[in-house]
Structures are given as structure tokens and as C-alpha cells.
């Protein structure tokens, strides 16, 4: 196995600003790569950049651009791509959602992304962007600040979410009133850096969110590690808790934070009546359980599989992840999974499995 895998870049710095020499250097002659990166990949990227160069050369200083606008009309179909300032529709029947703005009764896009329509609501989903909380989302967050009767939680959104002292389970039962002594020992429950899973309870008008952990499914996370992927790769499903082969549990936070941990003995869902018995101070414990080597290895392997899916921008779900995991078993050392070409293979396997599943 190589100590280090080095690939050469697919794209180059800004086509608009750079000198030609820079572009040629990076694009020319990619016949052989350093350590066997997928040939096809390269050629694709290459021809792309070549075309890019031609475009720039041809059009330099050419102010005539009417040919472009004609393409805009087609944007009403399917999952077509729109860019900021592009006219989406002149029809006034549509309600304007995220990613749009209106002017003279016309609707324009404000981001680069794809158009989505739900009934009469027209919105544009950006290709990239930070997580936008929705009520009911199961998310994973990290405490950034302990404040006055509330914690600030990083959930990968534009703003930190708030977790009120009143929205968590405290030792001694769920329905207990929060006392002043609770307020003083907030840092004993959750402190800066702690990870927890929670549900988005409410949204504020300024885009902020508030969370709650009033269920045994939620609370502090232990016995494992976190993997982060873009939130756009996670699909909202009925449940976000999965038990994976190999003794690993996964919580798929809608915000793209994924928690992999040792399978717990208790079933994921506990009836609400048993809540009080189980919510001692140990739910805020920082000590991990005994975790054996094979579980640790599996967790690392799953983490690499998730990273492989994210690398190819493949949405993460249970079927795909298990398929990727099974495909990864062909590599005895999970360390091989960090190479780009292996990642691509795993992602392809995952997609194939998902398709045949349907």
C-alpha cells in the first residue's frame, strides 16, 4: 500500500481572472496519473476545462450576449438549473418560496440551484448552502455556549440553535419543574463541546431555531464518533436511527451530522412511561462503555463509507451505506478506503444496490 496517494487537480483556479499559462499547465497532458486515479474521471474533467478555456478566449471583450437569454424559457421544466437573477416565471399564480424574489410581478431566482414546486409554492434549492432547520427535524448538534437558562448549539445552520433549560430532560423525571439549582449546574448536564441529538421544536422569524430533547431518543451522545457531510445529502425519513450490521448504531442527523456508535442494549424506542426510571444523572455521563476492537474497526469502516458517499455527492441512506460497507469488506484494511478511486467504487456500488432495491 502506498504511504501517500497523490492525485493531480481536476480544475484550476478561476477561469476569469487567471492568465492563460496557468490554465494550460494544469490542463495539458494528463495521460498518466501518479497512482492510477480513474482514467475516465480525468478525461471528463479535462474536456470540461478545455471547453471553458475556449469559451473565455472567444468571448473576451465581446459584449454581445443576446443568445444566452433564449435558454431561460426552458427553465420551467423538471429539475432544471437556474442561477441568480434568472427569470423563473411571469405567471403570478405561484407563491414565492426560498431562493426566489419578485420584481414587477415576475419571479426571479436568487441562488444557483434547482427549481422545486410543492403545490403552488415555487422555490429554488441551492446546490450548496448551509442547513436550514425545519420543525420536527432530528438533528445532531454540538454545544457552543452555556448561557442564561439556555445552551447555544451548533447545528451547521446560519445561526446557532437554542436549547432551553426547560426543553431537556433532567435527572429525576421528565415532568419535574426546573429549579434554580438546575440553572446553576447547567454545565454538569451539558457543556461546551458536548454532542447531543435533538429535535427542532420551533423556528424564529430571524432564521434561528430552538431544540428540545424531551424524549429518550434524544440527549447526549456517547460511545462513538461523529462524521460530517453536507446536509443536502440527507433525506428526511420516518426515522433517523438505524442499527447497522457489525454492532454499530447510526443516527443520521438531518443537518448532515452523523453519529456512529456501539449498538446499545436498549432498543432505540422506549415507551414514555419508562422514561422516569431511566433518566438518572447517567444520561449526562461522559464515560463511554466498554467497546471492543471489532466494533471500533467497524465504526471507522462505516465512517469511511459515509465519506466515500459524500465524496461522490451520493445521498446517504441506510441501504446505500450498508451496500457500501459490504463492498468495502473486499478491502481487508479499511485504511484503503480513503483513496479517491476506492471511494468512487464504493459510491458506485451503493448506488447500484439502491437502484436494484427499488
Amino acid at each position, binding site marked *: *500500500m*502506498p*504511504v*501517500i*496517494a*497523490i*492525485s*493531480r*487537480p481536476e480544475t*484550476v*483556479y478561476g477561469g476569469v481572472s487567471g*492568465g492563460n*499559462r*496557468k490554465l*494550460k*499547465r*494544469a490542463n*495539458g*497532458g*494528463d495521460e*498518466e496519473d*501518479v*497512482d492510477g486515479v480513474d482514467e475516465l474521471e480525468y478525461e471528463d474533467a479535462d474536456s470540461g476545462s478545455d471547453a471553458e478555456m475556449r469559451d473565455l478566449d472567444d468571448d473576451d471583450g465581446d459584449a454581445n450576449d443576446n443568445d444566452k437569454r433564449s435558454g431561460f424559457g426552458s427553465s420551467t421544466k423538471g429539475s432544471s438549473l437556474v442561477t441568480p437573477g434568472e427569470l423563473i416565471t411571469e405567471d403570478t399564480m405561484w407563491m414565492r418560496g426560498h431562493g426566489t424574489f419578485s420584481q414587477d410581478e415576475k419571479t426571479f431566482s436568487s441562488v444557483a440551484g434547482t427549481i422545486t414546486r410543492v403545490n403552488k409554492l415555487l422555490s429554488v434549492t441551492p446546490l450548496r448552502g448551509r442547513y436550514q432547520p425545519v420543525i420536527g427535524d432530528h438533528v445532531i448538534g*454540538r454545544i457552543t455556549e452555556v448561557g442564561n437558562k439556555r445552551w447555544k448549539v451548533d447545528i451547521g445552520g446560519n445561526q446557532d440553535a437554542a436549547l432551553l433549560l426547560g426543553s431537556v430532560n433532567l435527572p429525576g423525571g421528565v415532568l419535574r419543574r426546573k429549579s434554580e439549582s438546575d440553572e446553576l449546574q447547567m454545565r454538569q448536564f451539558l457543556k*461546551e*463541546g*458536548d*454532542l447531543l441529538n435533538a429535535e427542532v421544536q420551533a423556528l424564529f422569524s430571524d432564521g434561528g431555531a430552538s431544540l428540545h430533547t424531551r424524549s429518550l431518543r434524544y440527549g*447526549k*451522545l*456517547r*460511545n*462513538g*464518533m*461523529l462524521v460530517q457531510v453536507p446536509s443536502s445529502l440527507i433525506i428526511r425519513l420516518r426515522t433517523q436511527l438505524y442499527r447497522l450490521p457489525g454492532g454499530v448504531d447510526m443516527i443520521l442527523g438531518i443537518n448532515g451530522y452523523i453519529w456512529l456508535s456501539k449498538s446499545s442494549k436498549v432498543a432505540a424506542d422506549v415507551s414514555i412511561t419508562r422514561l422516569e426510571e431511566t433518566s438518572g444523572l447517567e444520561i449526562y455521563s*461522559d*464515560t*463511554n462503555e466498554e*467497546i471492543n*476492537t471489532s466494533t*471500533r*474497526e467497524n465504526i*471507522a*469502516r462505516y*465512517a*469511511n463509507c459515509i*465519506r466515500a458517499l459524500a465524496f461522490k455527492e451520493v445521498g446517504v441512506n441506510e441501504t446505500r451505506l450498508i451496500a457500501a460497507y459490504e463492498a468495502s469488506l473486499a478491502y481487508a*484494511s*479499511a*485504511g484503503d*478506503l*480513503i*483513496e*479517491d478511486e476506492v471511494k468512487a467504487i464504493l459510491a458506485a456500488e451503493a448506488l447500484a444496490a439502491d437502484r436494484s432495491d427499488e
Partner: protein
Amino acid sequence: MKYSPAELSYLKESLKASPPIRPDARLETQLRPIEAISNILPTANGSARIRASDGGECIVGVKAKVVPTSSTSELINVDVEISGLKENNSLASTLSSIFQSTLNSSQSLRQRLKLTSRFSFKLFIDVLVLSNQSHPLGLVSLTIYLALLSTKLPLLTSSTDDSKAEEVPVFHDDWDQARPLCDIPVTQSDSSKKSDSHWTPPLILLMAVVGENIFIDPTNAEEQVASTGLFISWSNGSISAPLRTLDIGSTDPQGISSTVLSKAYSIVEQCGQEISDSLTAVYVQDEDASSSDF
């Protein structure tokens, strides 16, 4: 970034185990994949850009200037800028000082920069760390290595002996006549054919120590649970100065044993050559690519 106690203890136990389990299942001696390219800056004598798989990115530009040899004791100037941090912050100045002293202590590099009895080239190595998740030392070292490999100096056309009459050096106009600063082996891993004058830039490898285990190219999480950071330099096929411990942001710094130290030594001995060969291959390829353009 701050981690939770549970995460840190999970990580520490995994890394202390025998064999250790890294969070990305890498071997102790395995580096993360990188994306590298040399000669990206038209205004520099040599340059390189490396992107790490965790999003870290570093750009290095090398520029040479003719100076009277007597005017300066240091012929190599290294300047590190880290995006998002203030100018002259301690991380950037630590890095500058590490690379500056390492490169300046190399006699053969100084020899190569000498032009005439009165004049030499002075190298300005400017490092720009665009983003870094983990400690940038390793990334910067790889990029400087590649940038120095790609560095070319114009060919001197005036006489090399100016001890009698002072004469400002004159150079050849044709860039194709420029000579490379470093020796590039014709075939890779052909390190046996080394002569005394052979010189390649030093490579500094950063490692994290956790318990009795050593991890090359540590991730941010690994750095936090490490006892200490350790870096060892690989130069011209052997271990060279500096060997140093380094604070890499451990939450619980501890001492290390001499067994661990010798283990680190053998790890660098094992993979130093392979890493420098891989980077040389990148340069050779970039060179071929650019020459086929013309």
C-alpha cells in the same frame, strides 16, 4: 474545534489500542491522499499547490533575487501566512522559523545559490495556508518541497569570477536555459545513484504520539488526544535536523518514552523516501506536461 469528553476518550482508547484504530482506519504510517500540482504561478521562479483531503490547502511561491553575498547571512527567507489568522501570529512565525532555520542550515543549498564570489541568489519562499483543519506543518512541508523542486534559476552568462572587478551578474534571456535548483532523479526511487553534490529539499514530517503509538499526518481530532507532537526531517536519504517536539493543541499533554522516539525515527526512515519520490513524480509529470505544450 472542541470535542466532547466522550468523543475524546473514545478516540484515545482507539488510538492507544494495539494495533491502533485511527478514526479513518488509516495505518500509522499512512498519509491522507493529497492533490498536488507544481508550477502554478507565472510570476514566481517555482511554485506548488497542495490540497489535503480534509480541505486543507497550501500554496507556495518561490522567488529569487540577486543580492551581494556579504549583505546577508541568511540566503533563504521563509514567510508563512495563514488565512484567517493575524499577521505575525505565533503559529505562522513558528512555521516560518522552523523552515527558515532548516533550509538555511543546508550547506549544499547555500552552495547552489552562490553566483559569483560577490553575489548570490536569495530565495524568498512565501507560504500561503488557505485553510487548515489540522496542524499545517506537514502540509506546508510537502508544498515547499514541491515548490523548491520546481524552482528554476536563470542561467548566468557573465563571468563567475568577479573577485577582481566588481560586476553585476548578467543572465540569459531565454527561460528555457534556466537551471533547476534541485537535482531530479531521472527515474524514481533511483536513490542509489546519489552523488555527494546531489541535493533534494528537506521534508518535515509531523507525527502525533498517543500512548506508545505514533501517527503520521495526524487529523485534528488525533492532535487533540495526542501526548505531544513530534516532527522529524528527512533530507537526502537520511534523518536530519530538526527533530523536535511541538505543541499541536493537545488537550492533555504528556511526556513520551525513548522507545516511542526510536519508533518515530524508524517510521520516518521507512516512509521518507517514498513520500519524496511521489512528490518528485508529480513534478516530473507537470514538467512533461508543460514542455509538451510548446
